[in-house]
């Protein structure tokens, strides 16, 4: 099953790349700044939220803004994967009813587009960070890359699952977006995990799978310290289990998918 899944993606790799490329081109079509928006959008968002929260919480913007930046953009990526996943099969109806292209490439298409945007936003992050905290740059930051791989696979799993569930019940999409909005507030993104812990609610993020996935990218990016090994173990375990489940679902749905569209 897993072999068939990857074989199909490999077989249609050119289609996948061409679709991702097209998605990115279309996103910034007819805009004067073009792809620069991929950098400007996260930058602007973080500056706005960062300034407001620095005033309200009295946090040091030099520390707070990068921490927010490093958490918010990976969060947005996960969001795009889960939300975009819901329409990935439905939106590919024309292809799936017209050709025998492998259906599993469509959730991956959404994730790859989001991932490239994430990489742009990370570039923007480092540009800001270099300006704010140049002394923190060091080899620890390289651990960001294994973290990004874990996050990518996690996002593919989410996109797969939401693609399958939404194909079977269109109620899934609004439900999921509600859950994601809720998760945004219970996940330590706009505040530090320690703030929850100080109030005795550490359990709230400790049982939140997304917290671990964010940690393996966010913490190395900030360059101060690395996540503890148990964070890695949990993040990898969640990702592997979820990925298996999602591939099973996709491959089961793939047979006769044209009937369901």
């Amino acid at each position: 099953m897993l072999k068939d899944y990857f074989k199909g993606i490999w077989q249609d790799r050119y289609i996948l790349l061409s679709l991702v490329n097209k998605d990115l081109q279309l996103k910034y079509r007819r805009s004067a700044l073009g792809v620069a928006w991929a950098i400007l959008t996260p930058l602007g968002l973080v500056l706005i939220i960062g300034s407001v929260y620095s005033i309200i919480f009295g946090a040091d913007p030099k520390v707070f803004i990068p921490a927010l930046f490093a958490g918010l953009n990976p969060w947005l990526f996960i969001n795009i994967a889960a939300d975009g996943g819901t329409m990935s099969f439905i939106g590919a109806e024309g292809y799936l009813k017209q050709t025998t292209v492998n259906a599993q490439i469509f959730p991956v298409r959404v994730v790859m587009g989001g991932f490239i945007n994430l990489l742009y936003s990370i570039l923007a992050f480092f540009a800001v960070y270099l300006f704010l905290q140049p002394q923190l740059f060091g080899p620890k930051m390289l651990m960001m890359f294994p973290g990004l791989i874990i996050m990518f696979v996690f996002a593919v799993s989410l996109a797969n699952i939401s693609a399958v569930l939404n194909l079977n019940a269109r109620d899934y999409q609004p439900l999921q977006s509600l859950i994601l909005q809720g998760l945004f507030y219970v996940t330590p993104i706009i505040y530090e995990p320690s703030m929850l812990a100080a109030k005795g609610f550490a359990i709230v993020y400790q049982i939140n799978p997304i917290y671990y996935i964010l940690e393996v990218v966010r913490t190395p990016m900030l360059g101060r310290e690395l996540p503890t090994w148990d964070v890695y173990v949990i993040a990898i375990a969640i990702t592997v289990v979820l990925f298996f489940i999602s591939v099973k679902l996709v491959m089961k749905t793939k047979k006769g998918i044209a009937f369901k569209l």
Partner: protein
Amino acid sequence: MSIIKLEDVNLIFKVWREKRIKNILIPGSKKFNDFDKDGTIHAIRDMNLTINEGERLAIIGHNGAGKSTFLKMVSGIYPPTSGSLTVEGRISSMFELATGFEMESNGWDNIYLRGLMLGETPDSIKAKMSEIAEFSELGEFLNMPVKYYSSGMFVRLAFSISTAIHPDILLLDEVVAAGDAAFLSKANQRMKEMVEISKIMVLVTHAMDSAVEMCNRCIWMERGSIVMDGDPKDVTKAYIKSMV
């Protein structure tokens, strides 16, 4: 060796029922919709058919007889519900119009993408791009996003791509008819050439002339079953007779 072989093939569609809480809470709110009593459509019934190399098969029959479903099943888009279906050979196909195109992209990008989906590699499809463009006669329009295309232009584009890739098996649904007269005669010419290149052709058509002219075998389908199978002249004659 190319072959299409069906043994006792059945294909049953499930019709997705619209389930809403409203219909449970308010009895009778669904009275206009009793399509969902059963929820299945038996599109292909116990079909046995062998199409060998060199055969150009025309499929005729009323709308809803299962002709297009048959083509999609052979191409692998719909798996049969029961029975065995063997298809050997590379397939190229053309079904509904204007689906499976990237609406915001221009004609060139769509040629590339559709070519890939029909099994070409980036190099092989790039090599055929100019030939496809020339055959379609779309010229400058190819630089335009396809969302501005008319249905005739979609036919030109889709037909040019599907027939440019030299398949073993060519499956065509009756869509060419949306092209203008000049393109029609050109398309007919192309199909005649294809017959020599491709080993098997299956054409769903409502034009009895093309069935007789282009094909050497014809089946008449009704409600998912084959009513008659034989020489195009005889089958089309019987079909027309039944309608009068």
